[in-house]
């Protein structure tokens, strides 16, 4: 049976995607507005981009945010992959229920709770708030997302490949690096990117755990937005959206190529 979309389904898709994309499109278009008023078109201009790059506080915040996100994503990817292996390859072990609870809870937990509890923890152990506390907090949150992404790949792939390697005498560690890791690599990359983006994007947890010298980009943007609309925020947002869009397209193309290659190898 060839499926044809009914008019109802087409309408749902068009309206749905218009709802998702129009606000972002407006934001991008008005970042090139010459007028200081964000909602009145005053001709094309790139002046806000120029002002953005001369804004040292904003540039500094962007640099801090990038460093935190990179470190967070790296550590979270390792921890999350280990956790995913523990959840799928170790059968039942004492504390498994607690473990799965601790992996799934942070993903849905309101951020205000996570942020507050981590801050009180850092104060209790006497760690100064700043770069490191934000990084630790972000790593804890994002490793759970990495776990779920990698776990999804681990449960679907063919276990007989691992068993074959073991039967042929490969030790577990060698099996992991020669067989398992290449097979789950796409999901590890996806987990890394997810952790990176979540860290880049977080306002609430960073606000609780920030300290002197560790003002992140979302914290800066938030305080600017509270004062009202600003074309500079539009320009900064457009750059972020551009980077993310390019990254997603690149990742999609890469994974497509690797799928094609693995299919070719299979034949």
């Amino acid at each position: 049976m060839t499926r044809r979309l009914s008019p109802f389904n087409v309408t749902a898709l068009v309206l749905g995607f218009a709802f998702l994309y129009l606000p972002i499109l407006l934001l991008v278009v008005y970042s090139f507005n010459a007028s200081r008023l964000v909602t009145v078109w005053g001709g094309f201009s790139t002046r806000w981009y120029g002002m953005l790059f001369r804004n040292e506080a904003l540039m500094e915040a962007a640099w801090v945010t990038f460093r935190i996100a990179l470190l967070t994503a790296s550590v979270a990817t390792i921890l999350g992959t280990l956790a995913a292996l523990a959840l799928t390859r170790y059968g039942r072990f004492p504390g498994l229920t607690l473990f799965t609870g601790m992996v799934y809870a942070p993903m849905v937990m309101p951020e205000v709770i996570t942020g507050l509890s981590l801050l009180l923890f850092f104060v209790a152990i006497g760690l100064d708030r700043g770069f490191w506390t934000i990084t630790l907090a972000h790593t804890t949150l994002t490793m759970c997302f990495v776990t779920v992404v990698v776990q999804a790949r681990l449960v679907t792939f063919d276990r007989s490949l691992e068993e074959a390697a073991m039967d042929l005498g490969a030790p577990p560690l060698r099996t992991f690096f020669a067989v398992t890791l290449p097979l789950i690599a796409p999901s590890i990359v996806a987990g890394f990117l997810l952790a990176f983006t979540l860290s880049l994007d977080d306002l609430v947890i960073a606000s609780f755990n920030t300290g002197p010298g560790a003002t992140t980009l979302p914290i800066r943007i938030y305080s600017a937005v509270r004062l009202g609309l600003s074309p500079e925020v539009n320009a900064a947002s457009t750059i972020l959206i551009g980077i993310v869009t390019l990254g997603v397209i690149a990742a999609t193309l890469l994974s497509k190529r690797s799928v094609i290659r693995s299919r070719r190898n299979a034949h």
Partner: protein
Amino acid sequence: MHKRPLTRRLSEGLVPAVPFLWLCLLFLVPFLIVLKISLSDPAIAQPPYRPVFDWSDIAGFFSQLNLENYELLVGDDLYLRALLSSVRIAAVSTLLLLLVGFPIAYAMARAPERYRSLLVALVILPFWTSFLIRIYAWIAILKPDGFLNQVLMGAGLISEPLGILNTETAVFIGIVYAYLPFMVLPLYATLEKMDDTLLEAALDLGSTPWRSFWTITVPLAMPGILAGSLLCFIPAVGEFVIPDLLGGSETLMIGRQLWSEFFSNRDWPLASSVAIVLLIILVVPIVIYRDAEARRVENVR
């Protein structure tokens, strides 16, 4: 071969141990500390609570605990109203998300197969762009002189600008917009697996499309409906950014209350007890969600 060397057994044990200990230290212990501080007195000091960690004095430790903050929470109806209003706003938003998300997910699942992965990517893409930026975008749309009013007045539909920004309506719009991918993706995942022949059989047997929708599609999509709803409802109850930027001063939400107790009033013990109360309310949905997820992973296996 059978007697594995001690070093290998140790390194194998590290795989579960490292992430487990990390989560215990940075997820579980912080909660116990919140619980502890919610039971202590506020103090004008840095940090602004009286430390109750005096290990040498166990009896004193228990005598210092008090329920004062919780009495304050119960006594002041501001917090009760904020809690009820958060649950109401989250519930209404979840319902709206189902109404908006279901047709989209359904149409995606019916689309020709070669377009489906593109459609999924298009739903996920906005999620990758900053949450804060996406909410900011709506301020320019909903403002009295914003895009929505410009369009509606230009079309002659309204003569006075609608005051949507800084109302509860704006909060609903913001939550539906920001959480839509979390609703659509689980729904799509279950709808995509649905067997079309069931619907055809029902139609052949004389059922109306409407009736077969309610008796076949909806029950089969239940796991997706449950997962999507919980994934939206739980974080929405504690939402801070959306009510703060889009809601008015009368939009009461508990996440916002916690934020202002903490940052404006600097009452850390009270903020902690607000967090504990919020957590107690969310424990049941969080446990249901965890079980549903664990079952889903188990089924895939």
